């Protein structure tokens, strides 16, 4: 039987997803045993042209990380989709947009204006900006243009499976790859990781009461967290209840609350809204003034708290661009 063909590719990635793949370490040898890697820019020299030359559908699985920010990303993932039997979105950027999708709450114009004119160190009285076409000392130069928003992978091509996390852990990466390679295919649309919320695997779960009720909310820098008590009971927002398990509670072992990088549990389409409704339901304040005061004093940041990794999935913010 011929070896399976696997492609890895990165779009708008920070490189952390590649680090996670390299952290497979000894498992990488098992991977090379089981499959031919036909594309992996971080470590191997295959390139776009090589992929173009392959027959359609000849790659068994393409594992793609990073969000879609540039036109080249769009082209490349469409090419990979055509060449591949299965496409896997790897990491929260490909899955939901990830942290760079927080930029979707700002217009392209305001991002450029700040970066090239308003930033305190910039000295640019002529208002120069990077241009798609410009020249330097008589040489004509081109720059790629920026898409209007950062999009998750499944908004551009069909995605078969998802590997969550920012970045995913090497363990889940291996679990997903080996299950796909062995032909034990989960149902289409499956998200690897646990099918239950993070709380179930959290070492502090025993201390989490059946019913939680918060009289106030504290931000992580305002409190010395007790590492032995569920953070919610300490008044600190922890995304554990509305986040898919599978990381084995890494942040919590670092004595900090979960911020939700594994995305929503099965059946929830938008983690941000779910989080907002969950936290509203456990806040025990029924007097409007008290509530308003809490929100104002605290400086609630719903995007950063509840939709930190999933804003790319939320289309509501994109309206701003169109106006």
């Amino acid at each position: 039987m011929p070896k399976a063909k696997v492609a890895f590719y990165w779009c708008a990635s920070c490189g952390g997803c590649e680090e996670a793949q390299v952290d497979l370490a000894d498992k990488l040898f098992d991977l090379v045993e089981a499959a031919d890697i036909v594309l992996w820019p971080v470590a191997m020299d295959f390139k776009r042209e090589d992929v173009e030359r392959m027959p359609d559908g000849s790659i068994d699985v393409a594992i793609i990380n990073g969000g879609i920010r540039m036109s080249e990303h769009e082209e490349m993932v469409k090419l990979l989709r055509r060449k591949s039997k299965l496409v896997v979105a790897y990491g929260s950027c490909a899955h939901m947009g990830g942290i760079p999708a927080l930029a979707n709450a700002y217009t392209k114009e305001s991002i450029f204006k700040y970066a090239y004119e308003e930033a305190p160190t910039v000295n640019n009285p002529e208002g120069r900006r990077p241009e798609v076409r410009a020249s330097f000392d008589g040489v004509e130069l081109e720059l790629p243009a920026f898409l209007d928003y950062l999009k998750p992978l499944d908004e551009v091509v069909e995605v078969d499976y998802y590997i969550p996390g920012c970045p995913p852990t090497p363990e889940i990466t291996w679990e997903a790859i080996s299950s796909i390679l062995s032909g034990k295919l989960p149902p289409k649309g499956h998200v690897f990781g646990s099918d239950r919320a993070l709380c179930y695997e959290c070492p502090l779960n025993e201390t989490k009461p059946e019913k939680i009720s918060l009289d106030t909310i504290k931000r992580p820098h305002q409190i010395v967290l007790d590492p032995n008590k569920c953070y919610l009971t300490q008044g600190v927002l922890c995304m554990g209840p509305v986040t898919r398990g599978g990381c084995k509670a890494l942040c919590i072992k670092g004595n900090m609350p979960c911020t939700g990088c594994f995305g929503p549990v099965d059946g929830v389409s938008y983690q941000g809204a779910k989080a907002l409704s969950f936290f509203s339901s456990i806040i025990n304040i029924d007097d409007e003034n008290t509530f308003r005061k809490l929100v104002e004093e605290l400086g609630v940041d719903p995007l950063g708290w509840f939709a930190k990794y999933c804003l790319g999935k939320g289309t509501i913010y994109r309206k701003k661009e169109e106006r």
Partner: protein
Amino acid sequence: MREVVIDPITRLEGHGKIVIKLDENGNVQKAILQVPELRGFEKFLVGRTAEDAPQITSRICGVCPWAHHMAATKALDDLFKVEPPLAAKMIREFAYNVFMLEDHALHFFVLGGPDFIVGPTAAKEERNLVGIIKKLGADVVKNVIITRKKLRYLEQLIGGKITHPVLGLPGGVAKPLSDEDWKICFDTSKEGIEFAKFAYKALKDIVLSNDQYVELIKSDAYTHKTYYMGLVDDNNNVNFYDGKIRVVDPEGREFAKFDVRNYLDHIAEHVEPWTYVRFTYLKGVGWKGFVDGKESGIYSVAPLARLNASNGMATPMANELYKEFYQVMGGKPIHSTLAFHWARVIEMVYAAERMMELIENPEIRSKDVRNLPKERPDVGIGVVEAPRGTLIHHYETDERGIIKRANLIVATQNNSARMVLSVDKAARSLIKNGKIDDGILNMVEMAFRAYDPCHACATHSLPGSMPLIVRIYDSDDNLIKEIRRD
């Protein structure tokens, strides 16, 4: 179009694009390094809670997340006006040196090193880890991989997540070092010192004992007389985690020494329409275009610049190597771009020795690792030396600590103007009469690779597909050769 060559690269972080234009004799009229991306972190930090900045900004780059995490954390100390307890500072500095050692090792053995270890004009299939295995043996590579794994494990013990840590908070760190973790840190530090010595021996045996290499390092094609910048401690020794920013002029004389809080008095940025990266320069000298020399405000950061901007290393073995470095290269400052590699290995030795110093100090085991902020936040500025140079985070918030404005002066950006110079000069020196081959082009690339650039960071953008595109045009603007590595 005469020919198109396509050739991917894996030894650069972030996008880069080089365009070379030839005159009618086939000599270089101009070679340009472009950075084709932008992400806009400074903008979308606005509206976020300040204490989240160390986690958000680590997503600027998954290759040096710890540098952003730490610069942001230090900016938060300043923002909330709270001093961390000694143990917290020591834990931070320890973890940071673990990261520096791990990251420098990656560059030395995988990204930049192959140019020397395997050879600058060796076949392109060999100028990578594969070539290193052939040259140094599989055991050596195994040692690199295993050591890297152990160092990264320490990062997880201390930071929760390896790649995007959750350790840093204003006034301290999220958790103290447990006794079991301390033991693992201690043992790995010991191995770290052996590993750094081993890297130095590899450098010495392969590069320094080869006269041709030393000549190449010293050659004019890779030389630029610019200013140099780096963090120094009270004795003007190199420090990665803390200190004052010191700048020396091209003759090696102190030009400025300042607290990062005053960086706006010293650093400004220039914008060009043909690249997304902003070019930093010394305000006190001014932007004079892409020229080197004392009259030009262009400066350099990262290992060589750090060594040039300091008087020595604070640990014994590294300091010996420091002295030897300047002796062999003929005095201070060293202007040879390729000497960055050598300086990087000296820094590996320092990082390992510093890890040991910190972990051996009983104070690091104290459980007192947090002071809670009590003051109203307003402006916070923090600095560290990233592997790729001086990194500054600057936040302004309202009284609740919601970010209103952010400015990031990112390591590679500080080298961006000098890299443009380096690529142009190397191309001019190496490409003659239209003769271009892969070896020559690799030697052009070496001119920027020495900086270990991370264009993802420089543009607060995305490494994305990391392609390097070299387009060569003749004097009639016909594309005669394109080398794409993507």
